[in-house]
């Protein structure tokens, strides 16, 4: 994927990365991760209104996801390094359906993307990351 000149998505992701660092408490001297959150998950959509979906492999299992965490951005080239995030439903099953997403977990899979390919960024609530799955009752 070749990286091109800076666009507004690039600006937005720069801002998102900055807020993500603030959320994680990187600007604090005396406290560490005061909010208990370090990720602003987001989705990317191209000009054809298609969600950017990536396939990854973790623990020998293939998965697909459209939710990412930004790790770094090269503003001059308008490229970003993203971690693939996995979405889970209430039953703890990986889900592709945004309506069913209850919890999001980080993976160790990273990709580099050309941000000029996208025109919409959809941030998701940070509290979804590492959210404990619901308790299922009664326990038989």
């Amino acid at each position, binding site marked *: 994927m070749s990286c091109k000149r800076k666009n507004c998505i690039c600006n937005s992701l720069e801002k998102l990365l900055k807020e993500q660092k603030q959320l994680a408490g990187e600007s604090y001297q005396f406290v560490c991760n005061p909010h208990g959150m370090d990720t602003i998950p987001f989705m990317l959509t191209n000009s054809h209104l298609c969600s950017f979906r990536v396939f990854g492999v973790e623990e020998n299992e293939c998965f697909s996801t459209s939710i990412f965490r930004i790790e770094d951005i090269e503003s001059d080239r308008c490229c970003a390094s993203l971690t693939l995030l996995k979405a889970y439903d*209430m039953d703890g099953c990986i889900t592709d359906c945004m309506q069913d997403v209850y919890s999001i977990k980080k993976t160790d899979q990273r990709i580099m993307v050309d941000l000029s390919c996208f025109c919409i960024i959809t941030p998701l609530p940070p*509290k979804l990351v590492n*959210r*404990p799955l*619901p*308790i*299922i*009752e*009664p*326990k*038989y």
Partner: protein
Amino acid sequence: MEKAIIFLDTNKSGSSREAIKAAKRLGYSVVLFTRRKKFLNQREEFPDIDEILIVNLTNREKMRELVIKKINEGLEIHCITSFIDSYVYLASQLSKEFCKTNPISLDAVKAMEDKMLTRRLLREKEYTPSFIELNEDDSVDNWIEAYKEELPLIIKSPKSTGSKDVVLVNNKKELKQGIRSLRKIYPNQPVLIEEYIIGPQYLVEVIVHKGEIHIVAVIEQDITIGERFIITGYSISSEIEPSTFDGLIKTVKRVVTDFEMENGACHIELRHVNEEWKLIETNPRISGGAMNRMIEEAYGINLVEQTIRLYLGKAPDLTKAFEKCIYTHYIIVHSVGNLLKVTGKNRAKKHNGVLDVFIKPRKGQLLFPPRSMGNRYGYVMSEGNTKGEAKAIAIHAASQIRFYLQPLDE
């Protein structure tokens, strides 16, 4: 003039609500006195109630004024009644004052409604368990030293209902804590301390008409002991051993006679221990929850309807149209959390033999382990050829139901 029945409070579902529907079926206009303001916001959920009036149900004078107002507006009040704990006696008093026909035995209702009065009245009877009244000014420490050998014990408030404040205490520490906590919840009230009786528990639904005691249904109860005693299973069948059944009925009739109930409805809970029957408690009304529906499914008798007929001065019809084995399994949870969703209701309904599946809480409601019968969150009712079959169906169907709870610390 339009004939009407006034109800003091109701739950949204279960026996008390079915009583309102029965009154409507019998051709009466229904007026509800309640303190639950939220009912007005949910008005469309109560099409069977003609008028809901918000009133403090402990303010008897205010209620008298409202009854008079309704009479002046042209309503002919045929009965004032309640199928909710704590208000049966009050409703009966008002009914006696304002209605032409009031056959209910007031003294019996009063004694049955108050656990302490029940114990005092029946103190000398062989079916009454050993008990002690601990008054508000009695020293707890001295008392505990004197009775520590009697542990485990049951402590309860005379005013508690639905197992809310009935606690099993196994040691001195629990006993002390239990008494303190009851005194905090019910200041100026004595604490009732009773021997702990271990044995199968039965519930008997009774109608008394002109002194004749009718045993409407005998129900075996399955109890889950956690923080409180919670009944999680009710079984109606004809499979009770004849000698057990005879002894139970004999004791029930003796209890009703000792209360001197001439007219009224009540349910009586007893435990069988060492070939003896011990009275756990009485209440001057049908059991709440699914009980009315269970009896209707088992025998074709709508007990709340027949109770209303009795209160209206008519003879109840308690003829069994058929006899079936019915079991109701109640669902409880063991964790605390906000309800996200419930699944499996339709799957449970589809099981052969399942008659009804009821889920009580709404999305977002906080659920927690039961501290009273009101903290049971649903039930599955089933029928079977035998008691065991009905129970197995209900439990299997209930196992399809899942409550998804969001932990509170999120």
